[in-house]
């Protein structure tokens, strides 16, 4: 970019001293204060009104948590724009600039900021925090299981830790790619200035932040003792922690649904000129498919947890057998969400990993259309397989056959994705930098995870394995060994663009080997436990399972150390790493064509795309994109929001 354009960079645009209004005074701390305050007021009111009623404690806890969520979001500024809209006012242009972070420096990361790059970075920090919490809980579990009858944790603590480890990780893995990378990278990748609805984007982030304290509060509200799947009727009888847990999930649903709508609308309406759907990078397709699937799956989760709250708080009997309810209803509602959910977790990271594979094999993605078809087929099929989680419930033995069929069929499009991956590696020029290491690890892990999934999809085999550690090992191989490793490949790949620093590869590769070996030892140990017949979610076990547990626990410690070393690599690189060039990987997707750090408006002029980003080995056409010469008389602003008639001068 020439220096002529520098004064026109949006960050330097002067804005009025009162721009932003209330936003100027709001940040995460005011959110915390308002949340605690309103939560306390809600508690007082609920306590006065309902404490003596039948379900008093549950009502009080539920209302308190709702008070916290509303208060936090009021305090951080999520509702400012909708409330102003409702009163008939709108934000001014200066307000919108302020909301996009202009003039605030690093402080904007602590505020409601509509710049998708800020939101992406905020999500990245949140995801790291969630993994740290979930990982600590996992290590507590593995420490308990060092010996068959350890006194490290009580049964109640262990059950509570199991449940929150699970849900914390599920939340973290659902947002681990769609939060940081779909937000930060995808709009730049398609040549857009921001997401379609930047305010909704910021809202999704702060709403999910407000969902986390209730999840952690469960530990002091008696603990959720029913696993992350919180099967009824055990969960209906659980301590008041279950109400807080339910509020977390309902709020999380809102965040993910809104974010999913935003992603879909962005991809369909904000692409740069020439970026046809056929030229869309595979990561964008993956984000699109994941978002579409979440619009389907999240409402199912919503009804599950709202009906859980009504069962606990107002006495409905959805899950209480004596009054006509059934645990099977919970299981159905939950897994109608739960199976698509694992593909919501898996598909975006796989998309990211395929970008890495293409870049580091210096080859086009093999079978682009087939890969996209594969993603779509996986998602469509994932809607029809949920009852494979219920093979042994006895709910409908005649349906076991059909669900076995749909579940095993899903392995076909999944296999196609693997064909595309190895086709991309075929005859490539493999550049073994750190992101590529994680691609290979994904490949190794996901084959194991996928194959063991096929074992479980066979109903007779599942009648042996359901509810034992084999299942746990299977889904850790796919979710951690597969999805999370693919996400880590994406993290190492996009680290230079997001942070402006190169990630220290020496430390990173050390971490890689610890993680890689740690995964195999831990989860093969768990497969061993499962083969032998050790049930899941047990704090104490038969001594015959001792050796297998030794292996799993030992591996877990190594795995934990590996992640810590990787975190250290990240922090160390942020502090002292070399500055990153704009395109360190010589990749062809659009996000690498903008400077690092990325300007507020991403592109100072709109790109016009003339080819897809996989032209490795092919002669350059006119150039992968054409940048029209900038017109210095035009002021360059981002697409801040579509709701401000004052900015647009029309509706």
């Amino acid at each position: 970019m020439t220096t002529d354009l520098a004064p026109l960079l949006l960050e330097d645009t002067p804005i009025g001293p009162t721009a932003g209004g209330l936003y100027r005074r709001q940040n995460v701390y005011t959110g915390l204060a308002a949340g605690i305050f309103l939560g306390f007021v809600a508690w007082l009111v609920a306590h006065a009104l309902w404490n003596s009623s039948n379900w008093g404690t549950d009502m009080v806890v539920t209302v308190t948590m709702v008070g916290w969520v509303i208060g936090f979001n009021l305090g951080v500024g999520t509702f400012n724009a909708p409330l102003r809209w409702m009163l008939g006012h709108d934000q001014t242009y200066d307000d919108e600039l302020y909301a996009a972070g202009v003039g605030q420096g690093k402080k904007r990361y602590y505020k409601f900021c509509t710049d998708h790059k800020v939101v992406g970075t905020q999500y990245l920090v949140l995801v790291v925090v969630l993994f740290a919490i979930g990982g600590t809980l996992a290590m507590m579990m593995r420490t308990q299981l060092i010996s068959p009858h350890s006194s490290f944790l009580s049964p109640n603590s262990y059950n509570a830790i199991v449940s929150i480890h699970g849900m914390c990780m599920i939340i973290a893995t659902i947002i681990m790619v769609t939060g940081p990378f779909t937000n930060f990278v995808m709009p730049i990748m398609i040549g857009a200035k921001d997401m379609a609805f930047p305010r909704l984007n910021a809202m999704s982030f702060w709403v999910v932040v407000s969902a986390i304290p209730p999840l952690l509060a469960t530990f002091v509200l008696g603990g959720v003792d029913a696993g992350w799947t919180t099967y009824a009727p055990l969960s209906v009888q659980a301590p008041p922690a279950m109400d807080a847990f339910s509020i977390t999930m309902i709020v999380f649903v809102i965040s993910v649904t809104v974010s999913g709508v935003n992603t879909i609308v962005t991809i369909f309406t904000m692409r740069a000129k020439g970026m046809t759907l056929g030229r869309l990078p595979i990561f964008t397709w993956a984000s699109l498919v994941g978002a579409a699937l979440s619009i389907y799956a999240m409402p199912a989760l919503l009804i599950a947890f709202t009906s859980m709250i009504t069962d606990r708080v107002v006495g409905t009997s959805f899950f209480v057998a004596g009054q006509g309810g059934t645990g099977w209803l919970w299981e159905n509602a939950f897994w109608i969400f739960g199976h698509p959910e694992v593909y919501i977790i898996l598909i975006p990271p796989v998309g990211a990993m395929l970008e890495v594979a293409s870049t580091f094999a210096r080859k086009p993605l093999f079978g682009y259309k087939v890969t996209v078809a594969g993603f779509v087929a996986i998602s469509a099929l994932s809607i029809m397989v949920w009852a494979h989680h219920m093979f042994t419930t006895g709910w409908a033995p005649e349906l076991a056959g059909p669900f076995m069929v749909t579940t095993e069929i899903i392995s076909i499009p999944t296999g196609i994705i693997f064909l595309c991956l190895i086709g991309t590696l075929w005859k490539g020029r493999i550049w073994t930098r750190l992101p590529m290491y994680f691609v290979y690890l994904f490949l190794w892990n996901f084959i194991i995870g996928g194959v063991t999934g096929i074992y479980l999809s066979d109903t007779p085999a599942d009648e042996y394995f359901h509810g034992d550690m084999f299942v746990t090992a299977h889904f850790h191989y796919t979710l951690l060994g597969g999805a999370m490793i693919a996400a880590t490949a994406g993290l190492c790949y996009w680290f230079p663009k997001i942070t402006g620093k190169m990630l220290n590869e020496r430390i990173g590769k050390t971490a890689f080997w610890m993680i890689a070996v740690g995964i195999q030892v831990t989860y093969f140990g768990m497969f061993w436990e499962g083969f032998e017949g050790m049930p899941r979610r047990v704090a104490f076990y038969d001594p015959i399972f001792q050796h297998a547990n030794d292996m799993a626990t030992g591996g877990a410690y190594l795995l934990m150390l590996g992640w810590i070393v990787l975190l250290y690599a990240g922090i160390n690189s942020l502090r002292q790493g070399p500055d990153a060039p704009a395109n360190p990987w010589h990749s062809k997707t659009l996000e690498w064509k903008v400077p690092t750090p990325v300007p507020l408006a991403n592109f100072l002029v709109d790109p016009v795309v003339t080819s897809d980003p996989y032209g490795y080995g092919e002669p350059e056409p006119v150039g992968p994109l054409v940048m029209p010469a900038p017109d210095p008389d035009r002021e360059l602003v981002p697409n801040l929001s579509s709701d401000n008639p004052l900015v647009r001068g029309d509706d």
Partner: protein
Amino acid sequence: MSSDHPVVDEPPVLPQGDSIVAGRPFFSRPVGKIFIIWFLMTAVGVLIGIFAPHHLMPTFLSHEGTDVWRTMVLFTILAAPVAAVVYAVAAYSLIGWRHRGNQDDPPEDGPPLRGNSTVTAVWLATSSVLVLVLLAWGLTVYSAEEVSHPGTLQVDVTGQQWLWTFTYPGTGVETRSLVLPINRPVQFNVTSVDVTHGFWPAALGVQVDANPGVTTVIRATPDKLGNFTVRCSQLCGLYHSFMYAPGSVVTSAGFSRWLRSEGASTTTGQATALVKKQ
């Protein structure tokens, strides 16, 4: 969606020295080397399939359990070549196609292989056939389990927090241990009095949840003598870890003796038949 490149059927651009014309031995070409790796990996996988389930899983005491073991062996043997293809290509890519040299700069671009419809079609066809085979196997095994046989022994199983109770209808016997006669089909009628539990006699190779308010059914035919443990496979609260019961498969005579020792009354049909056998 449109694509700007003629997509799939261009002949691939081959780098130097990699001719498919006769003259270069198979095993010194990448395809040949990949084949060697694939073969070795498949062999390892097949060996794992043959030996690991047997060594790692408990001794199965029933027909259904043996089916589980057979399924594991078959599925592993069938999975091995498929997994090996992926692993072999990946492994070779790091041996034969890796960029060695300055890692700071990217290597030159590879050939622009955007797809290959033959390979894709073969891959799809093979995976579909494999899935059909697995399905045929699984559905056959499963439907055999669903058939009820004459002379089936009925056992009512009741789960509660945190123990199992077994009742033999008609005999008045109610115990905490599950004793079964060998070679006789048994049908478990399972329910719970509180939350959902998982009735899991692992060595019999079957399980079904115990749900409050309904009775679920699972069948098995023990065909080996021995002891086993019934565990709970569905998290059911505080002492889920301790919810297990001993079980054993005994001879018919031993079973009748055991029933009598548990105080079986001989007034009803099933009981008479059971108890009278010497």
